[in-house]
């Protein structure tokens, strides 16, 4: 599968034998065919999802996951459109639609209803919700209820309804009530759930480098959206078994902390917070990013045998005595740990990224085939930026990017096929972004009997 005549490198000891390789070559070919999503059945093809989320991307993201797995997703917006259409890096937009909104406009229908102000529209919505399996909303907790279209009312007429609510502090507890009117943003759910506190340089570095630092990606909103989709899918499995719906509540301030889980347990067992330790890791070392001649490489060689191998490759064997065991390398004294960091950096700076990757992989391939245990698998890879990733052969073969065409914005490329499934994979069928584009379609299909 690699270039012509080039033999595939194997780095796991058990995989290296000739017979296994043959089996794997045919296995790889079968997989590549099996993983093509086109023409396959869709998991949620009988599921109707109403996304009435507004001013919060988590709802839009959650709805996308249902849409990719085949549900009919109707995004219900106010007549002027969801303000999330204007949330976009540096104002980049195509005919008034921002990049993130374009990216998440997959397999969706767009309908306009003014739930905030129109009694008539609320009635239409309630009728739709009578037929829906899932409702997603991000209004201030209690708003939908006060309009007569909250979980309490909708579940009366449709006991099978799954009602997903997303808000900063959730829909129950005193604090949720107190902060009900507080809106949501990605950076605030990152901050409130413990991510930035751990990123950045140590306290003795100059300002602002010793400040907490946010993740460059939308870690808060995407994690909240994924959590909502996951919780909703659990509820769908329950509904499939029993016919019973339920309410799913997401607090975006939980997002990061509850997905990775470590922060509260560390606060409890250590009785203090971890400080920021720059580019080091709290558990594994070496495990991070190093500068090289022509860019950056990541190095992961945390196990003792991986570490020994790394020292050999880089010609640093004289350091072995000081840093031999995992406990020697725990970076609890940051200044000391930086000595090893600098020593490695001195070497990585002498090579290009490709050279370093090749050095590590040649070593690993040999060590994997050796009868002698403990050769180690030091991993060195080039750090990729999104534009570099777009050119990657690996992800091209795996169809991670797809060119799509929007009725409004024209052609663009989006990320897709995030998981390969042999029978019922997720996929993108179309993209669109026009406010109210499917008003007629929805009315004809779902509201004619009203």
């Amino acid at each position, binding site marked *: 599968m690699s270039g012509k005549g080039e033999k595939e490198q194997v780095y796991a000891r058990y995989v290296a*034998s000739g017979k296994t390789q043959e089996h794997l070559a045919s*296995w790889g070919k079968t997989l590549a065919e099996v993983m093509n999503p086109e023409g396959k059945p869709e998991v949620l093809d009988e599921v109707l999802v109403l996304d009435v989320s507004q001013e919060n991307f988590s709802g839009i993201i959650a709805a996308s996951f249902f849409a990719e797995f085949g549900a009919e997703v109707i995004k219900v917006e106010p007549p002027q459109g969801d303000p999330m259409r204007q949330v976009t890096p540096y104002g980049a937009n195509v005919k008034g639609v921002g990049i993130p909104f374009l990216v998440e406009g997959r397999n969706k229908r767009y309908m306009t209803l003014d739930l905030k102000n129109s009694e008539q529209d609320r009635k239409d919505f309630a009728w739709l919700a009578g037929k829906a399996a899932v409702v997603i909303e991000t209004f201030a907790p209690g708003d939908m209820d006060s309009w007569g279209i909250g979980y309490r009312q909708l579940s009366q007429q449709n006991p099978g309804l799954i009602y997903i609510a997303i808000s900063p502090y959730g829909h129950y507890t005193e604090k949720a009530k107190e902060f009900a009117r507080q809106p949501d*943003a990605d950076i605030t759910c990152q901050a409130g759930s413990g991510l*930035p506190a751990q990123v950045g340089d140590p306290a003795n570095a100059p300002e602002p480098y010793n400040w907490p630092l946010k993740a460059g990606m939308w870690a808060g909103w995407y994690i909240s959206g994924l959590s909502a989709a996951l919780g909703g899918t659990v509820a*769908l499995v329950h509904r499939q078994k029993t016919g019973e719906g339920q309410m799913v509540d997401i607090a975006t301030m939980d997002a990061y902390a509850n997905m*990775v889980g470590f922060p509260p347990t560390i606060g409890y067992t250590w009785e203090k917070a971890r400080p920021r330790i720059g580019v080091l890791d709290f558990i594994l070392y070496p495990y991070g990013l190093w500068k090289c001649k022509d860019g950056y490489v990541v190095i992961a060689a945390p196990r003792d045998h991986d570490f020994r191998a790394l020292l050999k490759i880089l010609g640093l064997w004289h350091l072995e005595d000081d840093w031999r065991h995992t406990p020697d390398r725990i970076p609890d004294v940051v200044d000391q740990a930086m000595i090893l960091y600098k020593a490695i950096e001195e070497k990585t700076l002498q090579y290009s990224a490709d050279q370093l990757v090749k050095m590590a992989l040649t070593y690993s391939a040999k060590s994997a085939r050796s009868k002698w245990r403990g050769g180690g698998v030091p991993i060195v890879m080039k750090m990729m930026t999104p534009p570099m990733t777009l050119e990657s052969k690996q992800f091209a073969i*795996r169809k991670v990017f797809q060119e799509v065409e929007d009725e409004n914005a024209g052609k663009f490329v989006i990320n897709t096929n995030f998981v390969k499934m*042999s029978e019922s994979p997720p996929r993108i069928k179309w993209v669109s972004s026009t406010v109210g584009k499917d008003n007629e379609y929805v009315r004809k299909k779902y509201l004619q009997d009203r």
Partner: protein
Amino acid sequence: MEDYFSYTAKLFNPSETTQKPEVLKGLRVLDFSHVIFGPTATRIMANYGAEVIKLELPFHGDLWRPATYWGKYWKHSNPLWHFVTQNKYFVGLDLKHPGAKDIIYRLAQMCDVVAENFAPGTAEAWGVGYTQISKINPKVIYLSCSTYGQYGPLRFYPGWDLLAQAASGVLSLTGYPDTEKFYKLPDYLGDFIPGNFGALAILMALYFRNKTGKGQYIDLAQSEALMRLLFHFTAFKQSGMDIGRTANTDPTMVPASIFKTRDGKFIALACATEKQFEALCGAMGKEDLLKNAAYTDPFERLKPGNAKALNGFVTEWVKGQDLEPMIGLAKERGFPAAEVLDDYQLYQDPWRRKRGSVILFNDEMYGEIILAGPSAQLSKTPSRTKWIARPVGYHNRLVLKKFLGLSEEEIAGLEKKKVIGTFDDRPGLKPPVYYNLAEDPIFNYGREGKK
């Protein structure tokens, strides 16, 4: 009508969680996975009621067992491991022993889901891959987790969370522009997020199987899962924009950054909409900004120069304010704001305790521990913790007797032949030193009484 929040308080009452039904009751998962990525997918299954049988090598255990922050153990165990593996059955089985294959195949036959995250090809080479398992269990849902996926030129490359962050582009996005530093995202986010994708894929496959009776194979690459969370690819292809590192600002909103307050604390402030921008300008007493042509149009406002100026105004304003009153202002006027919270504050936060998103759990073996709760709360079939991690091989006897129907003599024979085994004296693998396993009914074939 009853107050909405007293209605929802009853709907979600955390003290009733354990009495509510479990969605995945009766579902069995055979879990070959290790470290964090695979185990997270199966842990979520276990949180919702599935019986997850986790296989480990005797006397080695999972690679992650001894890996705790700065080497700090808690009751001779890794405190972080207790979050990663909950409600699982721990079986120590020597895969290389000729007698082990039979047990594995019998377990695989009665399981609905099988999960692994070895380097691609390894499970196939060992005879426990999809080709082999699907022959004896055609309806199986088989999840393979890896860094780059099961096919493609990079498939055999080994990987960790860090490598997925690097391959997906995520790693290149955090830090200060024009410096030589990039920060990886903490807490093995590159394992936990893809692990949640794994759970999502298994549940979708389960939903499909309930409808059609068909099992399937799932190939989940952690780098691709992370790539699903970036709009940066489209931004580059569409507008030629390589966003890169943006320090503490969010380039999609303005103002949006982390600021330092007069009392030396850090606050995240952002305006995602026109309404919120008006609210913030009002709070700052800077309504004149709303009339400034540079800031009236949302797209215009986001342009780098304008965004920088606006973030500058907010920086100056926050410098003269204390944290608490600002949080109050945000709440009243309606713009997003939150204090930057650390590990200790999250653990102490009373709201999280009441919500059930930070749980004080009382375990039979370890006593009290604080655990993060689920990231989604379900009113009728909530996620729950029943027990935390156990020593290697703790459930050997129980699983073989209860699930496979082996007699106690047969099990003793397997122990003698070293097909199954437990832990050695290393922390992370063994029970707390004060704990007497001989008196533990679960360890002893699930016998009741004795204790």
